[in-house]
Every structure is written in C-alpha cells, then in structure tokens.
C-alpha cells in the first residue's frame, strides 16, 4: 500500500485540498507517512532574499507558507514531515520522488500563480508525465 506519500505543496488553496486528500489516504494505511515537499523556486530567490532581513526570516516565511498545509495533516494526527528543497519546481519534484522511491505523489492541479502556470506549462503536468509511481492530481 501507499506507505510513503509525497505531498508536493506550495501553500496555494489547491495544495491545501491536496493535503486533505493526502490525509484521507494516509489515515487508511497503518504506519504510513506523508512527506510535504516544498520547492523554493530558484528564479524567485532574488526576490525572497531581498525582502527578508536575514536567512532565518526567509526560512520562517517559507515555513509559514506551508502552515495551512501541515495543519491539514496534524489535525488528523497523520505522521508527517516537511522538506524544503531549492530548484525548478517541476523537475525538482520529479527528481526527488524518483530518487526517494515514494509510493504515491499527491499534487494540486494548479499553483499559487495561475497566470504563470498558464504561460509556463504546469508543474503538475510534468510530474504526472515523469514520476515513476502513481500520481494523484487534486482539483
């Protein structure tokens, strides 16, 4: 069964809904765990660094973005941890999921910025195409 579930999240409302689905699945599987993966977009780092006084504040801001997501899991007592990596969201999620050999990837259908998703081609699409395990895209 789905013991290791990877929840790719960016703090958007879609990722919160994805977290709810992750919680549902995880609660059905004994000793399952959910890993929340947040990819800090490399091309936005300049902006993030500029708007934070120091490195600690920057880390805190990223954690805060994920708060509504982690909340979905902690209120249901789902075993979970958070992982923040830096890279290009689509390929970074694919690489992480494949390297870690997770059993299931859950991802929201859109991100924080729907306009950008429209222009750049969606992250979830890349993930569905290239991850080697089942992927659940949450609307």
């Amino acid at each position, binding site marked *: 069964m789905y013991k290791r579930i990877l929840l790719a999240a960016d703090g958007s409302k879609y990722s919160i809904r994805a977290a709810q689905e992750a919680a549902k699945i995880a609660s059905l599987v004994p000793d399952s765990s959910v890993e929340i993966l947040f990819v800090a977009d*490399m*091309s936005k780092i*300049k*902006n993030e*660094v*500029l708007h934070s*006084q120091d*490195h600690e504040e920057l880390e805190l801001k990223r954690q805060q973005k994920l708060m509504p997501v982690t909340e979905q899991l902690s209120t249901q007592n789902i075993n979970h941890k958070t992982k923040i990596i*830096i890279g290009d969201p689509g390929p970074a999620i694919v690489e992480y999921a494949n390297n870690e050999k997770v059993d299931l990837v859950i991802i929201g259908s859109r991100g924080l910025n729907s306009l950008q998703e429209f222009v750049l081609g969606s992250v979830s699409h890349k993930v569905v195409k290239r991850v080697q395990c089942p992927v659940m895209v949450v609307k």
Partner: protein
Amino acid sequence: MLEKMKRDWFSNIRGDVLAGIVVALALIPEAIAFSIIAGVDPMVGLYASFCISVIIAFVGGRSGMISAATGAMALLMVPLVKEHGLQYLLAATILTGIIQLIFGVCKVAKLMKFIPRAVMIGFVNALAILIFMAQVPHFVGISTLTYLFVAITLLIVYVVPRFFKAIPAPLIAIIVLTAASIWGQFDLRTVGDLGKITQSLPTFFIPDIPFTLETLQIIFPYSIALAIVGLLESLLTASIVDDMTGTESNKHRESRGQGIANIVTGFFGGMAGCAMIGQSVINVKSGGRGRLSTLIAGLFLLFLILVLGELVVQIPMPVLVGIMIMVSIGTFDWSSFSYLRKAPKSDAVVMLTTVIIVVATHDLSKGVIAGVILSAIFFVAKISKLEVKRQQTSDKIKYDVTGQLFFASVEGFVNSFDFTIAKKDIVIDFTNAHIWDDSAVGAVDKVVIKFRENNNHVTVVGLNSSSKKIIDKLALYHDTNAQLKAH
C-alpha cells in the same frame, strides 16, 4: 585544508566547466554595454570582467558567485571618466580595491545588518531604472530600424529561452542580429562607433596620473562610493547564492577578495567591478557550484575576446540596448508595487526616497546612505513614543511609564505630568520603561524636582537594573535638596 581546497575546486568539475562557459558567453554583451555606460572602450569592461572573475576564483569568499564589470559600478564612474579620463578611472579602481580590502580586514560586512531591506529594495530598483535610462540615448529617436532591432532583440531574449536553454539567449540575439546587419548592410550604429576592441592580452601598467594630493582628492570620493556600492551588491549576491545552493559563505573573505580583485584589475587596465546577481543566478542554474566555474568563466571570456574581437565591434548598438533593457527588467523588483501597499508607510517612504535620490544624483551610494539615515530617523521616531498613565487613589497618585526614555522621547515624557499637583504622595513606576541616556536621567530629575517644589513626596519605583545603574550614576534627585541644573 587540502580537503577543503579539493571540495571548493574539484567536487563538481563537469557542472562547473559547462556553467563557466555559459556565464562567459552571457558576460560578453554585459561587459561591453557596461563599458559604454561608463564611457570607456569595451576592452576596459572586458579586461575587468576577465581579471575580476579569475582573481575572485582564488580569493573570493563565496564559491560559485560571478564577479565582473557591473552596471552599478559603471554608473558611478560616468562623471569621473567624462571629466578626467580613463587613467583616473584606473587609479580610482585601484583605490576602490584598497578601500574594500580595508573594509574586509575591519569586518565592515557586519554593518550590513544595519541596512534595512527597504533600502536594499530601493537600491536594486534605482539600479534598474538607471540602467534603463542609460539606454535611452542609444535608441530613442535614431531611426525606425533601431526601434525594430531593439524589439527583435527583446523578442529573442524573452521567447527563445522557453524552448532552448543551452546557449544564453542574449548571445543568440547578438549572433543572429549582428549577422543580419552585416549581410543586410543596415545603417545601424555599432559598438565600433563607440570604442575599439584590441585583440590582445591585458598587460600590467601603472595608471598614468600625477601622484599628487590633488589626484587623490579627485578619485577618493568616487572610490569610496564604488567601494560601498560594490560591497553592498556583492554581499547581497552572496546571500542569494548562499540560499540557492543551501551553503554558507565567508562574507569577510569575500570583501577582501573584492578588494584584491579590483586592485589587480586597475593595474591591468580594467574598470572596478563587483558581484553580479544576474550572472551568479545563471551560473548556479547552469550547474556551477565551485570556484572552478568562476575561473572557467574568466578564462573562456578572454579566449572569446581574443578570437572574436573583430566581430564584437560589428555588434549593432540596438541589440546591446535590447539586452540591457532585459537586464534592467530582470534587476527591478516587481513585487515592490505590492510592497508599497503592504509594508509599513515608513518603509515605503524609505524605499521611494532611496530610489528618488539615486535617480536624481545618479549615485547609488548617496541613495543608500540617505535611505539608511532616513530609516534610522523613522526608527527613533517610532521608538520614542512613550506612554505615561495616571492612576489616582485616595491619597496617592501613580504614574505608569511605558516605553523607551532617551533623548528623543524626554520632551513628551516631561509634558505628560501635571505639575499643578501639590502636597500629594506621588509614585512614578518605571517597570515597563527603560532609561537609556543622560538626557533621560535629566528628564527624570526634572520631573521629580518639579513635583517636590510643590511639596509633593515623590518615589521612583520599578527601575530595571541597567536603568538603575545610570540613574544612580547621574541623577540628582536622591539629594532631597537638589535644584534643577543644566542637564
């Protein structure tokens, strides 16, 4: 030690070499364009970019960060070059390096924390605006063909990377459009109209200037501004690279490294430079992590200068203008507009003031200094809000003081008391307050003694230990007969 060297240099050879080559290709248009901004031959920027990257590879504190000739520095040099010429610029570059080396030794990088982010946001925005403004004379009102070339360049640099990323898009724009303009024999201004390219290695020479106090007086103001701006941009870039790679860097070593690189560059005929945000991001994104990437970028750049020198002069100016417009769009912090709405008013004012002063003076260092001073004033104003609450019981009047008591808040403090009270028991409670300086002690004295003049009995309570210390040392009111003196 040897282990660390190995890790810094050879832990990522393939990624570093490839990224270094990409960076070298991306550096060419910028080095030329920044030379043109500064008003010097393209060689000055190209030599600078080569020297700085190579030296920084060895002495920098942040591996994987790219330093070369930059727009921020070029903009500062404009008046110096215009009035005194290249030789003074080279001397100023050497002096800039010496100042940065001293900054590094004195660990001035620590002072970075006193620069609020509103000032840094203002800094990058002002930089973007200045880079854009510097392009205007090169494309506005020249010819329709010029506008067309700028537009095509912008189209290439923004659209091509969506499909093809192996070669930096600006370079593709340069190659394609230079070829087009040569074959089509279009009437466009070229880099060659603004300066010449020599296909030779940079050589060591001492700038040809009179070694007098007068020379020093000319170059020193420029050098200090260059040193500050260079350090600021380098440390900001270092933080960005730190975060992108999830590693740490030695900011003091980087400051010293920037100094050494600029000293050497000045002696080899290059203009002062610093770390580049855009290029460093390109390097890391292309897989560059180690010092090798920076070294390869410099060496490959020199190779390109030697091989392609003749072609460089044929690059049409509108293409460089297009690339610089892209650089300025990339430099500008577009989230500033939402920042202006969301951030505290005082931060928004600091950011705008920084931008306005830079744009008005064309001097980034002045904007930064003004921004820092203004935010310090705002901070003092904010923290000097002091609250005094009065509570009256049957025989006692109690004043609760909340806030910071110091030179800026004493006036409000003294005015919050009602000195018409007579023959009462008065308690002044400082539990939620802190007494910082001599003026604060003077104010407490003034209040206590004034109350006593009306035969009140005054007690001061709740002083924290450091407030008590300064009161015990300076206050007069312990002596019940004390008169007000000049504090």
